[in-house]
């Protein structure tokens, strides 16, 4: 299933057998999400928690 990326508006592919908490990412901008699967099979994307890279910027 394709879900809109919250960052760039691209399409994030979520596998049909994904489970809640599975990490998926946007092919275009690299945003990472946790898939949240509802009881009715609905899919939402929640920004994945991660340690940010320090580029000294």
């Amino acid at each position, binding site marked *: 299933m394709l879900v809109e990326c919250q*960052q*760039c*508006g*691209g399409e994030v592919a979520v596998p049909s057998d994904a489970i809640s908490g599975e990490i998926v990412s946007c092919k*275009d*901008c*690299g*945003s*990472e999400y946790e898939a949240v699967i509802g009881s009715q099979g609905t899919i939402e994307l929640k920004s994945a928690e991660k340690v940010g*890279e320090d580029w000294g910027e």
Partner: protein
Amino acid sequence: MLNVSVIGGSGYVGGELTRLITLHPSAKLQATYSRSHAGKYVHSVHPNLRGIVDMTFTGEDPVRLAQSSDVTFLSLPHGQSSKLIPEMIKTNTVLIDLGADFRLKDKDAYIRWYNYQHPSPDLLKEFVYGLPELHRAEIKKSRRVAVPGCMATSAILSLVPLVREGIAGTGPIIVDAKVGSSGSGGKPSLATHFSERYGVVRIYKPAGHRHTAEIIQELSNIRNSKVDVSMSAHSVNMVRGIETTSHVMSSNIPSLKDIWKAYRSFYADEPFVRLVRDLHGANKYPDPKFTVGSNFADVGFDTDPEAKRVIAIGALDNLVKGAAGNAVQCMNIMLGFDETEGLKSPPLHPV
């Protein structure tokens, strides 16, 4: 099978044309002309083609070569193709000029930017500006194309969505260009001598670079009014590649999502333009390193809302999408081939 000739085959662009033609399933290199290397094997100048192109450079009259060729590519120094084309145009060959002589539509622009009185201004209208992403339909109907300059290609492709969508304000666009040593051509000079060039970040043209004229011409066509552009060009420490970082001032900075939309809508069906704006990793924005050897142009962007600035980034291999690859793409369009024929090589990594 098409018979193809390259006029000016000993330069870097001529070498790239030769390499790409060997990969094309429907084109055969009939001859490659070089006055200075006539009689020498192609691989003596382009060692990468040893065992691939078993041919010597010819010194035969270029107009006669054109007469017997289905397609004639001209990769000559500025001012040379305009001496040949008035005769070549009388033949049936398809003409693809990689020099600057027929890129500009306004003869006065040649005086302004090239300090050059064009000898055949009436022929300027005969040539289509060979950037498929902007002029595909015209290229398809034409038999004469002028292939854009390498820096112009990078700057234009990265900027067009911003101009088209009205994101770019009416102020001047500043283009900062960085180019590798192959952009200076194959003839050595003190400036290109290894000891002098290695390690430089040499701003060789702070203003007034000739390719600026093409950028103005094409972006003004998109906007339907004059777009002011100023470009600074640097030589940097790579062999192949161009990166343009362009600064667009805008009173109304859209969201990043809206800018993504502008780029996606313009380039959705383009086989050789990739959008690069990744949030992670070392390579978040276009970098010519990842286009080397390919016909891809990578474009990306960012915003600086506080300064009301949008940054457009373009990167490509100056010898491929910036010259020979784009020329072959135009040939494919003109002759009805799949646009990607002969151009399917992915970029090299690492290089």
